[in-house]
């Protein structure tokens, strides 16, 4: 479907939905509704946005809902979505910010029965670099019995904070027998940890690793040591026995990493890429090679 057509249809659906609400429709109502909230909660967000009605009572009611562990889980999740939308309203939500953080910390707790809600609370808190959330997430990585969320989620949330000092425990995880998604999450987090550079070099060169993990390692190495990345990437691209998908990925990354003046300065490598562009069996690899050659020609 054409994107303009899609957008038009979406706007029409949204308009229709908002018109069904009591009172005049507002942009905030529309946004809240689009975010998956009920008309009632969309109205709360709209009232907060416009400064009309008793916003304090509205937020208080929503906080009561998310705190109530015996309430229907879907209502609690919906209330949390409404609060999270409202938290972007700035001045009108600011009086309730402290209560909101406090409620989130209550949910981010082992006694919280709704896993999804607990996970959402931890995600929101970790985006604010909340120390309580960080401690909970790190404790879960140290001791799986204490984990409140899956390790892959814990890694994703901890990666929001470079200053969380999570790297030492995550570095140790990389060599443990963990599933691929968790390992990929660990590598994403370590991409801002200079000490982890040797891990990325090692994994990128290790043919026993999956293409996804090696590509993830290429990304990490490119961020932490572009020179080392260039050196290993050139070896991989030049090696016909290497995984062609990985060759395509690292060649594309190399094209975008090399400073403009250095693209094409290595004539031996340029010749190799030229050959790859015409002979490689994989279309993606040929395409990456053509991209590199275009960059050489446009210098």
């Amino acid at each position, binding site marked *: 479907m054409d994107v303009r057509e899609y957008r038009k249809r979406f706007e029409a659906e949204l308009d229709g939905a908002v018109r069904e609400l009591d009172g005049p429709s507002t942009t905030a109502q529309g946004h809240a509704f689009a975010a998956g909230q009920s008309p009632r909660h969309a109205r709360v967000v709209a009232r907060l946005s416009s*400064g009309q009605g008793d*916003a*304090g009572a509205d937020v208080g009611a929503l906080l009561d809902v998310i705190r109530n562990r015996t309430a229907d889980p879907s209502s609690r999740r919906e209330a949390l979505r409404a609060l999270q939308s409202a938290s972007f309203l*700035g*001045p*009108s939500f*600011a*009086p*309730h*910010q*402290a*209560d909101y*953080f*406090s409620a989130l910390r209550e949910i981010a707790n082992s006694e919280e029965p709704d896993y999804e809600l607990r996970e959402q609370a931890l995600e929101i808190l970790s985006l*604010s*670099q909340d*120390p309580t959330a*960080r*401690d909970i997430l790190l404790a879960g990585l140290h001791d799986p019995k204490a984990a409140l969320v899956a390790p892959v989620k814990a890694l994703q949330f901890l990666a929001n*904070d*470079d*200053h*969380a*000092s*999570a*790297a*030492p425990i995550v570095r140790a995880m990389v060599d443990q027998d963990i599933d691929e998604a968790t390992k990929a999450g660990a590598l994403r987090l370590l991409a*801002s*940890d*200079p*000490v982890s550079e040797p891990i990325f070099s090692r994994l990128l060169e290790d043919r026993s690793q999956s293409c996804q993990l090696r590509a993830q390692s290429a990304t990490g190495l490119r961020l*932490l*040591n*572009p020179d080392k990345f260039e050196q290993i990437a050139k070896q991989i691209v030049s090696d016909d026995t290497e995984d062609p998908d990985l060759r395509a990925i690292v060649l594309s990354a190399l094209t975008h990493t090399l*400073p403009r003046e250095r693209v094409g300065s290595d004539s031996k490598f340029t010749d190799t890429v030229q050959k790859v562009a015409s002979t490689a069996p994989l279309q993606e690899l040929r395409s990456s090679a053509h991209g590199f050659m275009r960059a050489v020609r446009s210098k």
Partner: protein
Amino acid sequence: MTEASTASLWGGLDDVLRQIDVLRQTTGSAPQLVELLPEQAPIYADRSSGEADRIRGYVLASFEEAGLPSEAEPYLREELETGVRPYTLAAAAKAARGGCDPIPLWLTPLLVDAIERIKFADDFVSFDRNGASVGSTTAVAEIVRTIAWLGPRAQGARERLSTMLRREGCCLSSAVYAEIEKTIAAITLFPPDFGSCCSPGEPVASEAPAARLVLPDIAAIKVQDQDGTILACGEFLHGSASVVTFFYTRCMNPNKCSLTITKLGRLQQLVRQAELHLRVKIAAFTYDPAFDLPRRLKAYGIDRGMIFDERNRLLRTTADFAEVRACFDLGVGYGSSTVNRHRLELIILDADGCIRSHFAQVNWSEHDVLKALIGSL
């Protein structure tokens, strides 16, 4: 003994807070508490920023009971001027209540500034090690409480607090509005000029220590600039007066590193307007050289208005930063991956490499730095 192993002597966070509790309860312990404030103190080594903030806030809050010595005031001032974390700001506000007359002039305006800065991110704070009082007070409420404690000495805050009251329903909670109302009432009991008799002058924005020759200590250190050029520190800094400051690109506090480099860009313009650009060098060292590679430095500087040439550079040490840190006694601490906390520092060196001015723990203005720079030529 390494810094990390010294830190491990302090133990985990709970052990550290317990030891601070012991100091809190010991008469005359304020000087020992002050020793725990520098960012480079072993107590902070190898900890996350969150832990470093928790310890620092706990120490600062202790001054409410232990009494606030003058040596702690620069730390308090810097926190109130640049802090963005509710916990440490509330702690600084509590520390101020341990002070005695004369109250420094900067205190009242910085307290009100701090409210403005964190009103969108207010949070509950507790300075009880076991968290017993969690939920009883927020950071903004603690700051307002300190303004109320100042009473007539907070005359300067009356108008700004009244403006906040007029915006009732927006930004602050009803509990905080009630506190502000009471505070204004307390201030209004006294005539508008009541507080002026008991205030000392503004503290000097920069200390001017006796000239200390530092260049020989760092002359041989190899540095790399934003374009990848490698040179020795001595090669760059010798022969011209220099402005040297410190930052890192991953700093999360917009009032620190990002602002420092932005002001450095403005200083460059002032230096050029004063036609001093051929007599002065301007450099900023990253605290985080392993991460801040040349391209990152360049993008960070350009985005903040810096113009690079042979006399104006952002620098990273090619090896460990420890020697530079030791030479300038920099207030910076490290976690396992990056900086966990740092203070603001700007140093003016003369052509021989002697320190002529040191702006530490203050949000320096480029005009003040230019003035000090001219004095060092």
